[in-house]
């Protein structure tokens, strides 16, 4: 079959028609060097050079720092999950070995000795000048645990259900992300509608909305967190508010762009049936925008899980608080444990989010 096709012979005359210049340009494997190209290259180079200067990003600095990095990495292992007892098991599991995951002694074995405290209080009353109270709360690691190797063939008993100490904080982080994201979406929708060129009621409204959005987008989430910590106090609610407000500028822009991308023909077709503006919006604009808007919203959620991690650093709730605590106390192994749990949690969330995304698109 192939032989039957006419074979196109290259033009042997060597004469080049004038108009083939544009075509030739398309065939050029490397782009032509132009003045504009040189200027762009120069600008890019200057920007990067300037960036490297400003951030002190030099290979020599990095090489000199390698021993410090190694030292830090060594101190991260083995991870310590800071296991906290959450419930007594109805049975005891006997293991022929011991894995030291940083198990904290169950609370009941370190309960406050009421009698002893009463005795101390009496002593203080008798002699107030020497007031010191030992509550003997028995917090933290049982001393022996620290010295145990990560793994040994020593038999051990598990009497309680344990969870890594970071888990409640991870859960709080996810809660902050869920509520913050939802609020953010609800707040962004009206902005998105007003900022979409094709459905905004008036060009002035459109411009004004874009201005507000840009202003919000310019403020980092951490600043919002600080503001809301000041407003509603330390805790996860400040984090929720920071996420809710912080993402409006960004999300509203994405929503507006999704709305601007809809097929105007599908809108026109409904208008032609005599449908009102609002009806056209519900039956043509929303169905067209929904998949994209939903995908963006899920993306925001994934982003917010990470953002909520950072918010804890300024006291706005979440796992950031405990990460900071471990770092401040040089508990690098506990830090590693917490980071591992966090990575697992974030991976699971991303997977779920991906599933949902596939469903709706």
């Amino acid at each position, binding site marked *: 079959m192939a032989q039957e096709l006419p074979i196109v012979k290259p033009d042997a005359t060597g004469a080049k028609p004038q108009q083939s210049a544009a075509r030739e340009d398309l065939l050029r494997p490397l782009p032509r060097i132009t003045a504009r190209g040189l200027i762009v290259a120069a600008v890019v180079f200057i920007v990067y050079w300037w960036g490297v200067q400003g951030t002190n990003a030099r290979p020599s600095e990095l090489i000199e720092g390698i021993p410090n990095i190694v030292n830090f990495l060594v101190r991260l292992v083995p991870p310590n999950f800071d296991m906290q007892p959450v419930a007594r098991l109805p049975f005891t599991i006997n293991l022929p070995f011991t894995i030291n995951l940083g198990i904290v002694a169950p609370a009941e074995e370190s309960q406050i000795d009421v009698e002893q405290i009463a005795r101390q209080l009496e002593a203080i009353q008798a002699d107030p000048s020497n007031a010191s109270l030992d509550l003997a709360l028995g917090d933290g690691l049982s001393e022996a645990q620290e010295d145990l190797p990560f793994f040994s063939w020593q038999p051990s008993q598990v009497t309680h259900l344990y969870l890594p100490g970071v888990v409640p904080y991870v859960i709080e982080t996810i809660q902050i992300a869920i509520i913050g994201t939802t609020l953010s979406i609800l707040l962004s929708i009206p902005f998105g509608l007003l900022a979409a060129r094709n459905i905004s009621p008036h060009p002035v409204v459109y411009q004004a909305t874009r201005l507000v959005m840009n202003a919000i987008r310019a403020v980092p989430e951490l600043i919002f967190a600080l503001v809301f910590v000041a407003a509603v106090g330390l805790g996860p609610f400040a984090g929720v508010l920071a996420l809710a407000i912080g993402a409006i500028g960004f999300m509203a822009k994405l929503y507006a762009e999704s709305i601007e991308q809809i097929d105007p023909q599908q809108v026109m077709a409904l208008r032609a049936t*005599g449908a009102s503006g609002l009806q056209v919006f519900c039956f043509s604009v929303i169905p067209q925008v929904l998949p994209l808007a939903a995908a963006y919203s899920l993306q925001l959620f994934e982003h917010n899980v990470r953002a909520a991690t950072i918010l804890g650093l300024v006291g706005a709730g979440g796992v950031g608080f405990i990460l900071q605590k471990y770092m401040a106390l040089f508990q690098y192994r506990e830090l590693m444990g917490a980071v591992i749990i966090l990575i697992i949690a974030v991976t699971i969330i991303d997977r779920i989010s991906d599933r949902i995304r596939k469903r709706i698109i």
Partner: protein
Amino acid sequence: MSLLDVRDLRLIYPNGHEALKRVSFKAEAGEIIALIGRSGAGKSTLLRCINGLERPTEGEVILDGQVITRMSERQLREVRRRIGFIWQEHNLVERLPVLTNVLTGRLGYKSGLDGLIGYFTRSEREVAVRSLERVNLLHRAKQRADRLSGGEKQRASIARALTQQPRIILADEPVASLDPELAVQVMSDLARVAREDGALALISIHQVELAKSFVDRVIGLAQGVVVFDGPTDQLNQDVMDRVYRFDKVLA
């Protein structure tokens, strides 16, 4: 009084292009009319003027005695709901099921919150289902519109128009993106339902031979002017030259 009376319609687009120059014709209920003309002759423009999507610069469109060219957008809604419009690219809302798309033909009759949240009464659904049956598409009712084949999409859009219970059906090149076989099917469906309902159908179409077997009357448009208006059997080579080769005829 005619159902549709188009009088001296003239339309100049904002860019100065005069798409329609003095277009006049009358049409009665039950007529099936083909609108032919070369690309750019003004067929789409004319159809859009008839349901008020486009405002003419001069002249009038009178529907059942009402001058729609002077109506407010609000009044136009009531006129439009009795005018089915079928587009070349069907323009269904791709992500919605076929039935919902067809039901949107009822929106013009609804004004409350129910119309916004997609609540349609039993009798409204009855109209939609009946329309789907008439174009043999009921088995696709629950499918998303973007899953339909080209011919099915066009039949769904006929069903949407039928659900409006229209007195006039305007179709802008309804078969242009279909293969010849489907084109015949869709044209025959369209002509049949229009005839059954006694609606006036105005169908712009490029396949003159195809049109001939389904329509009673042909209006030929060239450069925004009606150059032929008569029964299908008067279409001869001379007329075709006037409609499609006016530039050569003049030269």
